[in-house]
């Protein structure tokens, strides 16, 4: 089937199977920031924004994105404050979880411009970083909020 939606602010028509998750469709379209990791929606590494809300790409049927607006980190402007803050705070090691962290943090800061440590922990609770960069990730979110 043909999936029509907006990807990173541009109209897109992507070939997909009816039972396919959006993660695989986006990867085929060259958006390699969307990364299959746990496959069951608990780690946040394949997070994309659907109409601005973070969702797990591994749990979203491609068809559910039809006609909607989808954002991956490839669609963020180069000078976006959240990835800039991650870079400035060295808030990553291997970089695998970073796109999902950045998109989740972006939404968190839209909802709460000045989150406490507890609010950051809750907001990013569904994003795992096995390298354990959490202290610097928290610092990056604070920096982006400032």
């Amino acid at each position, binding site marked *: 089937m043909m999936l029509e939606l907006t990807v990173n602010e541009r109209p897109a028509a992507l070939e997909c199977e009816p039972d396919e998750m959006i993660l695989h469709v986006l990867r085929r379209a060259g958006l390699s920031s969307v*990364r299959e990791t*746990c496959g*069951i929606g608990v780690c946040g590494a394949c997070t994309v924004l659907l109409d601005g809300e973070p969702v797990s790409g591994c749990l979203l049927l491609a068809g559910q994105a039809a006609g909607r607006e989808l954002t991956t*980190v490839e669609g963020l402007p*180069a000078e976006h404050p959240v990835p800039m803050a991650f870079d400035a705070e*060295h808030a990553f*090691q*291997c970089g*695998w979880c970073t796109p999902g962290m950045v998109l989740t943090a972006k939404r968190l800061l839209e909802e709460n411009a000045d989150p406490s440590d507890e609010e950051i922990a809750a907001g990013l609770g569904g994003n795992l970083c096995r390298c354990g960069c959490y202290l610097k990730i928290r610092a990056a979110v604070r920096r982006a909020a400032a």
Partner: protein
Amino acid sequence: MRLVGYAGDAAADGMWHAAFVRSPHAHARVLSVDASALPAGAVALLPEDTVGLGRYGCQLKDQDVLANPARFVGDIVAAVAAQTPAAARAAAAALRVSYAELPAVFDPLAAVAEGAPLLHPESGGSAGDAVSIGVRPLAGTNVCHRFRLLHGEAERGFEDADVTVEETFRTAGAQHAPMEPHATLAQWTADGRLELTTGTQTPFNLRDDLAGVFRIEPERVRVVAPPMGGSFGAKTFTRLEAVVACLARKAGRPVKAVLDRSEEFVTLGRHPAAVRVRVGATRDGTLVAKQLDCWADTGAYADCGPGVASKMGYAGIGPYRIPHVRVDALAVYTNLPPNGAFRGYGATQSVWASERAMDMLAERLGMSPLELRLRNLLRDGDRFATGETMHDVHFEECLRAAAAAVGYEQDPRGKGLCVLLKGMQTPSRAAIAVERTPVGYTIRSASCEMGQGVRDSLRLQGAALLGCEPGQIEVPDPDTDSSPFDTRTTSSRSTYMMGRALDEAVADLSANGGERGYGEIANEGGLDPDTGQGIASTHWHQGAAGAAVSVDEETGALTVERLHAAVYAGRVVDRAGAELQNEGSMIMGLGTALFESVEHAGGQITNANLSDYCLPALGDLPGELTHELIEREGAEPHGLGETALPPVPAAIGNALSSLGLHVTELPMTPERVAEAAA
């Protein structure tokens, strides 16, 4: 945002995708594989396709490309390739395998008992120069390696002791759980060369192992190692590469495999272990004798279990002067998925046991655990139990820093300490090449990037030596065709070893017109596996941790209020990178201490997903998690990649024990804590 290209992102023209047929039995002979229902357009790799191939394995060559018998639930008995991952999975499901089940064993102590089913009735051949440890399998048993260390006369030593404690401690199996799963792309060139793009920390070991499988010269194998999305030991030695290469040859086209998370759980883990400690001291707290017996469950294949058992053995002695020591450490086969290198490499298991036993001894002596440690710590010029002389020793500084951070001397209740030593791969070689380019320099090495920041470390060290900006230095991916030889990217050795090789390379470049330079460094040593004497490490990782906890004795819920690690860094090369190593190690240590455990029933892993197997998240951090890098003017850089992990569980366990809660098994779940309180 600049994105990293990982092995799973690699593609080749005409590439197909792999799927694996895995044994549902823990131990079973494969009687037949029926491929008659294989869909058109798929290719199957069947047992008859692997006849005549060599075996592989980094320390013992005990693995076949396709397993028969299958030795654990998940062992690969056949494989398929097809145009899409979904088509490959469907094709794999179409193969019909018939098995004859064999008796199985799932515990290392049961596996060494008389009459236990044998996994490898004939020992695998020693794996040549990929190893340096002198593997000692015990013929006719499930013991694939026995490491012994004899220093003084332990039995006589215990006669001098006024107080002796003895306890057996256990640690659970764990998953590395790198966010990026294993991914491998293999293809054969028209002239019969094998080329792989794969996530690996060990490109040269892998090249040599695969050359043995396909019976070709090592130079006929090319391994390119892109950055990894984490590894922590998971992507060491030969994992999927042999079967994917074989499948690509059969398919006559490039084939890529990317594992799903449940397959990760049967690919490699950390050795569950039992460690029995007996330690004795005189009334004044002077250690006189120590005995350690270790059983490391290496699963169905040795992998580097022999090396892990050896390191478990000597790391469990601890950074102490002890006149009489006896260590007996076994790597034992069981019918569980293989275990191998894991951040902390054997030290995690035996440091838990050894440092918990120190607090038991202190209690029996009526002495502060801090004072007992300080009284016995190794100092500069002391000899370790291996006979080697210790240099640049900072255990006391690390321990005092950890104690001070948690206010241990003011009030030790609810607080615990741990101090450790951990060796670096010895012997080993590292080589590096520097070339001038129009914009600066290219530094070629086989040091693999897995998030630990080795490329930044080389850029920073190179920039300082070459008088340029780090951004002018290009560090290409390791490639066995063009990168000089390196033993491997393990044991926190790259900044130190490759950094020294880089010094040589830059000196060579300066002496030869400034265009090209080459440097090579070797560290010599190794331990005799029968006596444990020799040089365990030319460079010691030294660290300590302090913890403060509170407990709800009714529910067993344990809260870590404060956690601090102090690690000897020598000279710091990349400050943010160094901090990240300490923080990451501590957080991984928290998971090990509190909740990570690979569970199995009848050989089947029962929590093979990231919902049932929990990884630490941001909300799991202690109220205060802090650390420090202990630096010394003029010192060499010290490896930092792992040191802060092994002391975390024992510091927390000792904090519990200061409250009268004696837990001997990791993780310290609420159930175990409540049981200790009952």
